[in-house]
């Protein structure tokens, strides 16, 4: 089997041995072809994993005994955004499911389940490994919010307000495309994949946190379906009504305008990443989505993309 076939077909035990770069290649492999929603739903049924099968016992030992305080701080700082982010998309996605084709709705039900499972994954990691206090999911979220940076507050806040906007008319094509640009293109396609690459590369190279590595790599494979759904949705929307391209552009202008505001610095160097490497990673993730799906952007947005600041690293 090729590496990408391994990615597609591995069970949770096999996922632990996958290289994150192969999983990221798997995310992008189908962007030019873009499978239909039914194919993605079938893939979900084959790839679904049980979050309660993850074993965090070695992670606890690594966290307490092998990682430095600086590494722990940076790791919590970067992953807290997705502790809240997974919860955020779990509750904001149902409104998007209300619109679109029946195939889209069926697929979307699987993505909502994915996001709920990812929320449980982070809840278990923060509770069992990091040691955040709390009897409920909300209490653990409350404990980790102080680590969430503007990198996540802005885009996830925008998504929450766009979900409210969409709730007024779930079939409004322009509102759906604006929502889809924030969620599928930026949050899933750029932020999530960048955070995955940074934290999972650290885990793999250092041999730390095998439970986190397994669960978040499985999450990354789930993201392949999410990104491919989203890019297909955006491509089809624009093909159907080219005027909707302007909605993608306006949303990108807002996202890129708020990019770069970070109130505190994360020492990602301790995880093996320089700010410039993070910057290049984010730009590359965005370019790959736009290019592969054929979303043209005007010069002012190209300029904004080139000025993306490594805000994940604190600006």
């Amino acid at each position: 089997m090729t590496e990408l076939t391994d990615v597609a077909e591995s069970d949770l035990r096999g996922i632990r041995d996958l290289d994150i770069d192969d999983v990221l290649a798997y995310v992008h492999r189908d962007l030019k072809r873009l499978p239909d929603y039914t194919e993605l739903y079938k893939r979900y049924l084959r790839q679904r994993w049980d979050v309660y099968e993850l074993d965090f016992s070695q992670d606890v030992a690594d966290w307490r005994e092998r990682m430095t305080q600086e590494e722990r701080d940076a790791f919590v700082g970067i992953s807290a955004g997705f502790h809240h982010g997974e919860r955020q998309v779990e509750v904001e996605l149902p409104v998007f499911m209300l619109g679109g084709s029946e195939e889209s709705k069926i697929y979307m039900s699987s993505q909502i389940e994915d996001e709920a499972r990812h929320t449980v994954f982070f809840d278990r990691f923060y509770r069992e490994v990091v040691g955040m206090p709390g009897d409920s999911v909300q209490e653990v979220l409350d404990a980790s919010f102080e680590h969430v940076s503007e990198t996540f507050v802005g885009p996830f806040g925008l998504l929450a307000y766009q979900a409210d906007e969409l709730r007024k008319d779930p079939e409004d094509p322009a509102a759906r495309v604006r929502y889809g640009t924030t969620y599928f293109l930026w949050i899933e396609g750029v932020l999530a994949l960048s955070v995955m690459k940074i934290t999972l590369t650290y885990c793999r190279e250092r041999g730390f946190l095998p439970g986190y590595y397994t669960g978040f790599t499985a999450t990354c494979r789930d993201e392949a379906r999410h990104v491919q759904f989203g890019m297909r949705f955006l491509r089809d929307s624009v093909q159907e009504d080219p005027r909707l391209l302007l909605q993608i552009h306006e949303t990108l202008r807002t996202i890129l305008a708020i990019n770069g505001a970070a109130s505190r610095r994360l020492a990602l160097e301790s995880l093996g990443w320089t700010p410039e490497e993070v910057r290049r990673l984010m730009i590359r993730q965005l370019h790959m989505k736009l290019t592969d799906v054929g979303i043209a952007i005007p010069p002012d947005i190209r300029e904004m993309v080139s000025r993306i600041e490594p805000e994940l690293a604190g600006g």
Partner: protein
Amino acid sequence: MRFFTPEWAEAARAAVDAGPERAGKLPTYWNWIDRARTGYTATWALGVRETGEYLVLRWKDGKCAEAEITSDPSAADYVLAAGADTWRELREGADPGRVVMYRQLRLERGDVLAFFRVIYFFVESLAALSRLRTD
């Protein structure tokens, strides 16, 4: 000083105009906010859902020029409202960024994308007016 009175509204205007304490956050963050604020002209109406009252803040060329309490926010560019519990939590120190991210302060009217282009300026203004001491 009582919450949502003309006296409080004027204190809120002065507080957001001055901005919050800048200690503890990166200078580049405040640079972003200063850029967002430069020349900013718009009117925010921030309401309490239970009472139907709004604090209206009028920004002109980057200065918060006027404030009033009203039950008619129709002239505002952005109308937002939260429940009394959220306002109480903010006065007790809740993170205004989280209040936004969790959509506890809802945008009832106004362009979402335009509103978010200055979102951290808004968050810090919310922080500044939430820290006013009230009875």
